[in-house]
């Protein structure tokens, strides 16, 4: 994009940067942004599609439960989390084409998108040999993994 070429050398590289080094730096930033934007867009579209399919399948299965707020409230108050909330349960539900399992699978795609974004950034920075941002993104990724493991152990 042309607008990025407007960015001043002193902003990005420090005052003594050569224009060639600047151009390369801008190209690197632009490429990283395109890839990360694509990861987010694909994650969002995929999850939205799967969730909508899941809602349609649930609706076809039991229209009453999902249409009226009274019915859904009753359902929410009476049942205690009998929908799938572990990965094996979700996959077994998927194989039976259950609406709820399909929705949950779509939500898992949504939850995984920011984590995948961090992982992809780490790979991009590694390819670009960015000595500050490789450790930064790898650290964030490890913290996310740790929190998932801790959550599993504690929850």
């Amino acid at each position, binding site marked *: *994009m042309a607008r*990025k070429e*407007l*960015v*001043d050398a002193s*902003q*990005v590289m420090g005052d003594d940067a050569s224009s060639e080094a600047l151009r390369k730096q801008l190209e690197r*930033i632009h490429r990283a*942004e395109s890839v*990360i*934007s694509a990861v*987010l867009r694909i*994650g*969002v579209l995929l*999850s*939205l599609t799967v969730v909508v399919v899941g*809602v349609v399948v*649930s609706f076809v299965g039991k229209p009453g*439960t*999902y*249409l*009226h*707020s*009274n019915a*859904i*409230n009753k*359902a*929410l*108050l009476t049942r205690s*989390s009998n*929908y799938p*909330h*572990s990965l094996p349960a979700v996959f077994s539900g998927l194989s039976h084409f259950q*609406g*709820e399992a399909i*929705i*949950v699978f*779509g*939500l898992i795609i*949504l*939850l995984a*998108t*920011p*984590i995948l*974004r*961090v992982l992809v*950034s780490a790979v991009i920075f590694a390819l670009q040999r960015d000595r500050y*941002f490789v450790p*930064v*993104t790898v650290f*964030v990724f490890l*913290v*996310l993994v740790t*929190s*998932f493991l*801790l*959550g*599993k152990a*504690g*929850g």
Partner: protein
Amino acid sequence: MGSFVVELFFICVVAGLAGSLLGIGGGIIVVPVLTLIFHVDIRLAIGASIISVIATSSGAAAAYVKEHLTNMRVGMFLEVATTTGAITGAYVAGLVSQKVLYVVFGVILAYSAVQMFRGHFRDIERPVPKDALADRLQLHDAYFDEAEGREIRYKVTHTKFGLFLMYIAGMVSGLLGIGSGALKVPAMDLAMRLPMKVSTATSNFMIGVTAAASAGVYFARGEIDPFVAAPVAAGVLVGAVGGSRVLPRLKNGFIRSLFVVVLLVISIEMLYKGVA
């Protein structure tokens, strides 16, 4: 009588729109709507608000990153502090009284709102203090402001202090499950001196990761109900994608005013919870 799924979907479109413009997760809309209007259990409402935060973040960030409104380097660097803070928060949750926390953060948010309102009259392009860390990490940047029709260059400052504030912000979201964006935006705007739209776009970029850090716990506990979360996810995504089309064309001053109002509302909500 309308249907649950359709009503909730449209309310969440509004939440996604507001969240994507202001860099917050939309939990302040989603949680009260679910509990007060639809009488959904508070735990399921909070689970749905985690979904809302992630949907707002990813839905809008796809556009903000591509348009170079998000300062990705600032966002990724600060994520070191927000994610660590979120884990700390989850662990010390039992040690401090939630009521005290609500009061403390209600006061901090009210103070931020006043400071940000005063910032309205400050010369945005006055020189910022030099910051060696920001230089080394190459955090300074520029973006093209569609509302003003020109490129705006900015320098980032007080990176270390910003990192500290982000640790606090992460801890608060780990402790209370809400309000991370409401603290991130003032930290970037007031301390690090990012332009307002860059602050909200960068906060928006970061909140998804902070929320993802705790999402696994909510999921394993069965607090993410597909019937509640599906309309929330779909509505918020549509609203956030819509909002991301609008933000580049809005003026920094307008976003700041809107943010100050919302910040005051959240602050009152928190103070009320702390006292009631």
